[in-house]
């Protein structure tokens, strides 16, 4: 259904590419300079882009009443929340992954760093979608910007690990440790954050 509303996936994608393209224009087109900035720029753009559509995870279902229906069905609410987050990531996170390949050309990122960049973005943007789900649940029926404000401070560890993994790859250093930490965060985040999101949604019925 999200694919029928093109703004859901096009807006974060366009936003990501515009932010990336601003850096060579505003700072310097120098290759070495842009390469040194690339990991941070790509990760900040990815985080902000993934937050753009975060409010839409539950808001429409809450407004039109389908969330009530899901919550009283016999299926575990945890599974529903996970399915919603997965769909959200496929619609917003996955296009950002593809766009990051284009951005690597704009920022002169070496080919050797593409694999860690993609791996860290997969782990990181999915974790951001999980975090975003809590923000979206807590801010249901309120301002869309509120969910982003709730989520952004908690995105700092993801930002640090993701940036460090890509920077290490650029410097030909071992980056696997950073990816493992991100994987561990995701492994804990899937059950933990989904359960917290269920509780956060139920607060809206009180």
């Amino acid at each position, binding site marked *: *259904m999200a694919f029928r509303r093109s703004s859901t996936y096009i807006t974060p994608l366009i936003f990501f590419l515009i932010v990336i393209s601003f850096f060579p224009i505003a700072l310097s087109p120098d290759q070495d300079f842009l390469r040194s900035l690339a990991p941070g720029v790509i990760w900040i753009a990815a985080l902000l882009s993934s937050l753009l559509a975060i409010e839409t995870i539950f808001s*429409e279902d809450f407004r*039109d009443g389908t969330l009530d229906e899901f919550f*009283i069905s016999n*299926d575990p609410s945890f599974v529903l929340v996970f399915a919603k987050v997965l769909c959200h990531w496929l619609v917003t996170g996955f296009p950002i992954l593809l766009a990051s390949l284009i951005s690597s050309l704009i920022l002169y990122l070496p080919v050797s760093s593409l694999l860690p960049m993609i791996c860290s973005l997969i782990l990181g943007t999915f974790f951001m979608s999980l975090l975003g789900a809590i923000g979206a649940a807590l801010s249901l029926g309120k301002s869309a910007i509120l969910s982003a404000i709730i989520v952004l401070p908690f995105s700092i560890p993801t930002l640090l690990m993701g940036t460090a993994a890509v920077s290490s790859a650029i410097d030909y250093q071992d980056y696997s440790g950073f990816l493992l930490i991100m994987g561990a965060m995701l492994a804990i985040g899937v059950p933990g954050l989904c359960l917290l999101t269920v509780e956060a949604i*139920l607060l809206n019925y009180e």
Partner: protein
Amino acid sequence: MLPKLKVSNLSCSRADNQLFDDLNFEVHPGQNIEIIGSNGSGKTTLLRVLLGLIDIGDGEMEWLDNENNYNNFRSIDCFYQGHSLGIKNLLSAQENLRLSSYSFGVSEEKILSSLNRVGINNHSSFASEMSVGQKKRISIARWLLKDFGIYFIDEPFSALDDQASSLIVEIIEELNAKGASFVITGHRPSEITSNQITLDHEV
């Protein structure tokens, strides 16, 4: 026959307002309960409390299970329709019913016959192109997808013409005959045969 749901001494308050106090009733197979009250009297809250969407304040709810034992958790298939109808504008009438039945799965024939039963013949039209009354009819078609034990419906007769209201009464009677029970809310008593609970909390 044993009641499907027994509610005893149920109370609920929000902030400093006591919405309802010491409610006692039973939902028997094929029987209906109407919760009557003005705006803000706690009708929707009561439905949500009964369904477990809101924590129970004081009191007890006991649900009948398949082995004729009573449990404090919901052991009966229930259908809930709130003020919002649960209809997606981006989906067609047929797709909306398919989404509603995702967890129990019904045949396409059942979906189409349910839509035809409520007078929706343009199955592939998007809900966004339909009137509020037609959307309400789609939501009524969802009642027919499966034999639910208890239907909890918030103000089913609002925003409907006489023909649609008669259709609802007809469908409720049909489902009652199969043993289904309805707990519905409204501002005034409807035409269906029911036991009535009046919430007289002053807003």
